């Protein structure tokens, strides 16, 4: 049997600890609960296969994010993501686990809209930093980029998010 640097128990612990985060990351990238669930499950299956082949993983959390990210890219190459407007036409509504008061429900949709309208280069860092609470260091390990680069992208991305948010606010007030 090949030596594994991550045991079955550690792997299952990583599932218990990070599965919700990976799922949430996928959800905000593909805007589809079922698809996000499938990608999350497949992420863990692929990671386990990688471990059983004797490959070494230093940071399992970063590895899981990277695998999920690559799968999302593959997925979008196969089929271009459906926009929120298209989904609304099909009767799709984002599902939120908390009790859905109309205001909160609206905001859940709003964040999806904001994320969708961001440039591709900002999407990942914004989801990881503000929705999944990852540190700059962790994001840089996942994206394999310098901390400086990540920091700059997070700052610019955040400025964009606020800009879109304020624009939406004023539109709503005027209407």
């Amino acid at each position, binding site marked *: *049997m*090949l030596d594994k640097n991550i045991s*079955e*128990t550690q*792997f*299952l612990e990583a*599932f*218990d600890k990070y*599965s*919700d985060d990976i*799922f*949430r990351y996928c*959800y*905000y990238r593909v805007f589809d609960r079922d698809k996000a*669930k499938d990608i*999350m*499950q497949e992420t*863990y*299956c692929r990671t*386990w*296969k990688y471990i*059983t082949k004797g490959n070494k993983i230093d940071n399992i959390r970063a590895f899981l994010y990277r695998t999920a990210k690559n799968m999302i890219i593959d997925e979008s190459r196969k089929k271009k993501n459906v926009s929120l407007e298209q989904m609304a036409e099909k009767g799709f509504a984002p*599902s*939120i*686990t*908390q009790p859905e008061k109309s205001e*909160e429900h609206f*905001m*859940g949709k*709003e*964040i999806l809209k904001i994320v969708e309208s961001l440039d591709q280069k900002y999407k990942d860092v914004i989801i990881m930093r*503000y*929705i999944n*609470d990852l540190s700059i260091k962790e994001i840089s390990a996942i994206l394999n980029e310098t901390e400086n680069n990540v920091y700059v992208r997070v700052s610019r991305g955040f400025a964009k998010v*606020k800009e879109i*948010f*304020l624009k939406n*606010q004023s539109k709503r007030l005027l209407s």
Partner: protein
Amino acid sequence: MESDKRFKKLVEESKNITLFQKEKELIRSNLISLIKRDFKVQEGSVKIPYYQKLQWLYAGSLSVAKSVINNSVLRYSLSMILIFLFLGSSIVFGAKDSLPGDFLYHVKTQINEKVLEMVTFSGKGKAEYSIELAQARLEEMEKLAVGNKLNDQLSKDIKDLFNKHMSNAKIQMSKIDNKDSAIFSQINTNLEASLNAHSSVLKKISNEVYEGESQKNNIKEILSDVDNNIAHTESERYKQQSKLFSQGEDALAAESKRSFFEAEKEIEKTIDFIESKKIQVSVNTYIESKDNLQLAENALSESKSELDTQSYETSFALSQLAGRMAKEIRISMEAEANLKIKLNMPTIKNKGKDEK
């Protein structure tokens, strides 16, 4: 300021997207199955994908077919073999439903069953097949007793065969136990459920249906063998449970969850089964089956509560009990449908927590 607050709220709101607990548990159990499967593959049993086997078979068959078509002697021989096989297969097929004392019964036990045994290779397959044969002997005894055809000789033949199958099953199961205790537990649970169900069927037949004294004794003799085997499966179950309970918390938690989902599936299967057999059994049996299923569901729901409070040992014992109950209900209903007699359904015993 107001917009800042709103923005913060919006960001916080975005974090509420999580998996539902049930979804998470299901994916986790899928991963555990994947881990277990990989272990088996790594331990040496490299499997050839079925499509590769088919390709090989296809290529081989094609070359044989070509040589037969080009050779008249071979063509003639093949025709004779086909005629022989056709006649032979009719006999073999006819023997399938024969009972002890019938002309074709020896074909069934000495040819059909032995051939099938020879083509079963894995330890698990061999154990399950031996159990299947042991069950078949009990069903034959039930049918003969209800038809008033059970004499001393037939009873002795069935009893000997039953004990032979059971001892083969035990040999195979002890080999499995050394390699994979999870598979052992699964087979042992199925066996226990089946023996319990057949024991109640035989008791019912012995007490109410059949009237001849010597035949009653014949049934009692085999019942004593069945009950001894039930005691054996029970003690094996306790041993397996102690082994499991002495393992780490993680292994126990994973096994308890797996057992819970298995029991849930068994109950779902039984719900459909009860409805599908509704018209083949008496109204009382239908109602009793539903009542017993309710008890099994209660045990499962208790198992869930214990699982939530991380009392894994109790949860495991309760879900195992629920699963066995569901299986017993199906076997007993099937027996009544086949024999057309009213049977006492197995009743759940409140021993889940004691089973630890």
